[in-house]
């Protein structure tokens, strides 16, 4: 058989590939399947949070901010518990980032609040002296794209069985149900209801007026996303 393989390089290459691939599958897949299950406390993103995630990606926040806390004492002191792979189960794509020009944002929802984000996005150096982050004033004017967020929700719920409208276990033993609208109109209504809660904690009158009129500025969606990062 080996002589035959030596005389047929193509099948020899196929044989090598199959052997190595099989070893790889046996070693990697079971662990990977185990580790990539959502950990308890990880819930899918709501429509508004997902719209905020799109704003985050659109403005390349991940170019300067990572979302990956490494298991070092210095990092866990500053950012909280080190990241687990299951915490990214609903991140498509994940936003680990590869560079920290600004701080890590993996758990920013634990130690910053809506009003701080509002001040900070308007004028970063106003709250953090010496900050080199630019102001993102257009987020207060642009309207968030709820329809695209809803389309993503529909897609992931159908193709990846992301548990929308189903109870998801939380850390304190309770369950949480993340709602997804049955139609675009319902999704927009759900997002608006969530946006009203955020806008109530904000100071910017234009943003408050826009939300009262049924529009959702990008900043509201982004803050909803930031607050969901825990």
């Amino acid at each position: 058989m080996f002589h035959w393989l030596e005389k047929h390089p193509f099948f020899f290459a196929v044989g090598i590939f199959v052997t190595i691939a099989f070893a790889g599958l046996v070693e990697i897949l079971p662990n990977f399947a185990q580790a990539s299950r959502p950990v308890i406390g990880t819930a899918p993103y709501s429509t508004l949070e997902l719209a905020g995630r799109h704003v985050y990606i659109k403005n390349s926040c991940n170019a300067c901010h990572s979302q990956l806390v490494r298991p070092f004492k210095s990092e866990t002191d500053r950012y909280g518990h080190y990241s687990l792979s299951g915490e990214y189960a609903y991140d498509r794509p994940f936003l680990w980032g590869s560079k920290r020009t600004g701080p890590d944002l993996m758990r920013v929802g634990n130690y910053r609040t809506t009003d701080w984000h509002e001040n900070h996005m308007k004028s970063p150096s106003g709250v953090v002296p010496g900050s080199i982050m630019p102001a993102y004033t257009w987020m207060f004017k642009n309207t968030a794209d709820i329809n695209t967020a809803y389309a993503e929700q529909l897609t992931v719920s159908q193709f990846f069985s992301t548990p929308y409208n189903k109870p998801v276990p939380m850390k304190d033993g309770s369950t949480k149900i993340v709602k997804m609208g049955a139609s675009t109109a319902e999704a927009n209504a759900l997002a608006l209801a969530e946006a009203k809660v955020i806008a109530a904690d904000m100071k910017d009158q234009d943003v408050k007026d826009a939300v009262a009129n049924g529009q959702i500025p990008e900043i509201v969606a982004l803050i909803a996303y930031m607050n969901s990062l825990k």
Partner: protein
Amino acid sequence: MNKLYLGGIIFTALMLLFTYMSVIGSEGGLHGDIVNMLAVAGAVALVIITVFVVIKYVRQMQTDTADGQLADEKWDGIGEYLNELPMGWAIMFFLLIVWGMWYFTVGYPLNAYSQIGEYNEDTAAHNTKFEAEYASITGDRLVEMGESVFLAECKVCHGINADGIEGKAANLNKRIEAKSVKLVIANGSNNHLLGMEMPMPDRNGLFNANTSALITDAEIDAVASFVANGMAGAGADIFAGVCASCHGADGKGMDSVAPNIASFTPALVANVLAHGKKGAIGEMPKFDRLNAKQKEAVGAYITNLSK
């Protein structure tokens, strides 16, 4: 003499000369320290061995002829001699197999190291050190520790001087702002600043004992500026009539009833850090990453600020 040997000797001499010159030219020179001497010895050995080995094999290539018995099989026309297995090589090969078995079954350091294990060890070591060095500090050292924690965690909202950055967060150099007093009188408060006291009623539950009527807008304004002013100025009578029954005549609060609104106390600050707070300006998140001593230290620092 063969040209090859001559070339080898000249090359060796040149290399040794370069080695000598570079060592003499370096800091410390030839007698600088033992490392220099070792490096020189190594370089000399390397040059001599290299020249010797190269000459040996070049000579062999020049003079050697092929002999021995060829194997029957050929691979693309290339034959192979039937050589005896070198004994030293064979012994090493079998030893390596034994070592490999040992390494796969026992020796492989799969359980000896993990990144999380190292993190846990680091954390345990840090906590032990923290306990030993800081668990019992008091007074100025506690305030100092509080300041460093404040600068790491709190300054992002409250500012380096704890002045709240122009109203973006609470000014911690004074106990309370008038608008915060007005907010809790108008809406009541369920912040549980002491942990488990009764919630404060809103204005529909606040009677002025002096007038036997609900607190009025004018009285709210007056008592708010009185409290914000550090329990001084006009409005003392309203405070005595409305607020003193829970917050005490001097505003210093009562255990399990109402918090101190005349000054900060470490326990109050520690409780806000543990549970967060939503007030007139905005929402403050909880900081349960801080340990009990760090919270106490921040409490001491903030209490010290407004003294």
